[in-house]
């Protein structure tokens, strides 16, 4: 299933670029091949396949061999470049995901268990506020505070030579963790799933025999929703990473995607999109594995 989806991903990416008015091929030749005749001659000379599906198949074949082509801008091979920076993005998104969960889970648990007390109400409003902040503006606030309060210029690039301190790592993580716009949704989803499970009859049985309801509701009320939310929010975090990496000059995939989009560096942006999709699919795979481990019924469905 995952492989089939990635095939679809590659196809979508290809189709978008194939349909684009500024053909990737023309971009490669830049202004040198303005006329159709020159372009056609160049294509023949480079033995570029003519029809769209042969183009797709040859491109796909190269991808499967690990060859995403070379970046137009730098001339370096795309795959190794993307993998090099994707590690940084994985750090950033994983850290932010943890940050989001650390914040959201207690609020969700409290309000699922105790209903909306004034404290929970305050926290819930807080999550709504946080989810509505434009993330880069929030980033600027954090940078401003860090410069004026701590006297540290928090951009990753400024200290890349001597390695990152925890400060340079934590600020973007906090900003993306808080400002990715999903906290209120995470809280809401977790709270509803937990409340639903607390109302299940087997929880009543557990209470009737004097057992802990946390133990009995853990799998369905906590583990499954959490993996579900992690898997489904990875795309949002990767999207948010594009902005946050830009704000903090974080040398990651998002920043590279931005540069690629600006310079119309087609091979690069294609490679990034495919790698991002792979990361998303890996998240879903993890969710699936947990689901099957927890609930053997799921494997049969």
């Amino acid at each position, binding site marked *: 299933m995952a492989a089939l989806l990635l095939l679809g991903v590659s196809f979508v990416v290809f189709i978008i670029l194939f349909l684009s008015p500024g053909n990737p091929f023309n971009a490669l030749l830049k202004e040198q091949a303005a006329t159709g005749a020159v372009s056609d001659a160049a294509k023949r000379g480079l033995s570029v396949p003519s029809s769209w599906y042969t183009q797709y198949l040859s491109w796909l074949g190269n991808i499967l061999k690990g060859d995403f082509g070379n970046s137009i801008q730098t001339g370096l091979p795309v795959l190794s470049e993307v993998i090099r920076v994707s590690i940084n993005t994985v750090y950033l998104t994983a850290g932010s995901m943890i940050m989001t969960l650390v914040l959201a889970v207690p609020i969700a648990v409290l309000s699922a268990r105790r209903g909306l007390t004034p404290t929970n109400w305050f926290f819930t409003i807080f999550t709504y506020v946080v989810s509505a902040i434009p993330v880069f503006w929030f980033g600027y606030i954090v940078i401003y505070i860090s410069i004026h309060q701590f006297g540290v210029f928090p951009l990753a690039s400024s200290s890349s030579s001597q390695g990152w301190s925890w400060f340079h790592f934590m600020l973007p993580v906090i900003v993306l963790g808080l400002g990715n716009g999903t906290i209120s949704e995470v809280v809401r989803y977790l709270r509803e799933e937990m409340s639903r499970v607390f109302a299940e009859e087997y929880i009543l*049985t557990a209470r009737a025999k*004097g057992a802990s309801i946390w133990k009995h509701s853990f799998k*369905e009320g906590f583990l499954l929703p959490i993996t579900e939310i992690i898997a489904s929010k990875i795309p949002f975090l990767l999207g948010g990473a594009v902005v946050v990496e830009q704000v903090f000059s974080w040398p990651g995939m998002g920043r590279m995607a931005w540069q690629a989009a600006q310079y119309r560096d087609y091979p690069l942006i294609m490679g990034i999109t495919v790698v991002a999709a792979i990361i998303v699919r890996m998240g879903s795979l993890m969710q699936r594995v947990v689901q099957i481990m927890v*609930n053997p*019924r799921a494997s049969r469905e």
Partner: protein
Amino acid sequence: MSNGPVLAIENLRTYFFSRSKQAFIRSVDGVTLHIEKGKTLGIVGESGSGKSVTALSTMGLISAEPGVIIGKIGLKTETVQKNLLRDLKDHVKINMSTGRIMSVYKDSLGWQKKINRLMKGIRGKEIAMIFQNPKLSMNPFSSIGKQIAESILLNTSISNRNEAKDKAIYWLEQVKMDSPRLRYYNNPYGLSGGMCQRAMIAMALSSEPSLLIADEPTTGLDATIQSKIVDLLAHLKTSFGVTTMLISHDIDVIKSLSDNVAVMYGGTVLEHGPARTILTSDYKYKHPYTAALLSSIPSQEHIREKKKLQVIEGDVLDTINIPDGCRFFERCNKVTDKIKEQCEHTEPDLREVFPGHKVRCFRFFRT
């Protein structure tokens, strides 16, 4: 042998507040009943008569939403003797004005905490409960054996996992589960409803409770499996002698399993007495409602002679607007002109008309 009842409920009232109606739904409204040690009390009544809520109130499992539980639930066993509703009133404030309840403030958290503290060591240990709908009542993410073993570890003196497992298998054998060693590892979804109910019963018995509450244990099962479960319960009753509160709307189940019976209607007990006499059709001194209930069940005689079944006219009582008089007055077909006035305006109390037999009906009151 018996020194007082194991469970004595006095004037239990469990009200839920309905936001939309701005009124109380009086699900349980003045229930008084008691269960002697080693005996089975059957509670029978139509759906909505407050049977399950009585059971859940006893277990302290009513959720903390706006609502009131008042009265007295006395539990007296070899180790424990206390009122399960002690001090709960402190957490509820009711604002009354001109006879209507204007607002209810309930410290749900405190209430919940208090009831959990009160019930600690009682839920499971002293009172165990079997629920309706066995498939939904077992944790689907854990094997039935583990769930039974958990109950054993929590509620009995056994604290060794292997011992608990052996004990769980023993109980699975006791409830006549086939190949209990294999079933130990089965998850509930792999079992039939009847199997799950057996496992539920095993789990309830495994904690060796002083009182077993069985809430509609046969409802939702196929007819053949129902009778098997009834047989099993009868067998367990004779071999272990557990004090049981058996709730069912099925009079046949009650008849075959219980020593005493409490007939509930509109949130209150209309009749309380020995099952054998009350639930026989030729016994004259029973509440009109009980009589009507009995005659609405097809007996062999009915089927043979193709007689028409008698139905109880009217609807189940609206538990928001409970009338002043007898709750069954509107549907009663045995009102005589002599007591009609009385029936309509004053509610009869639950009075002992024969030794051990209490009825809430003016027809039997001699004064």
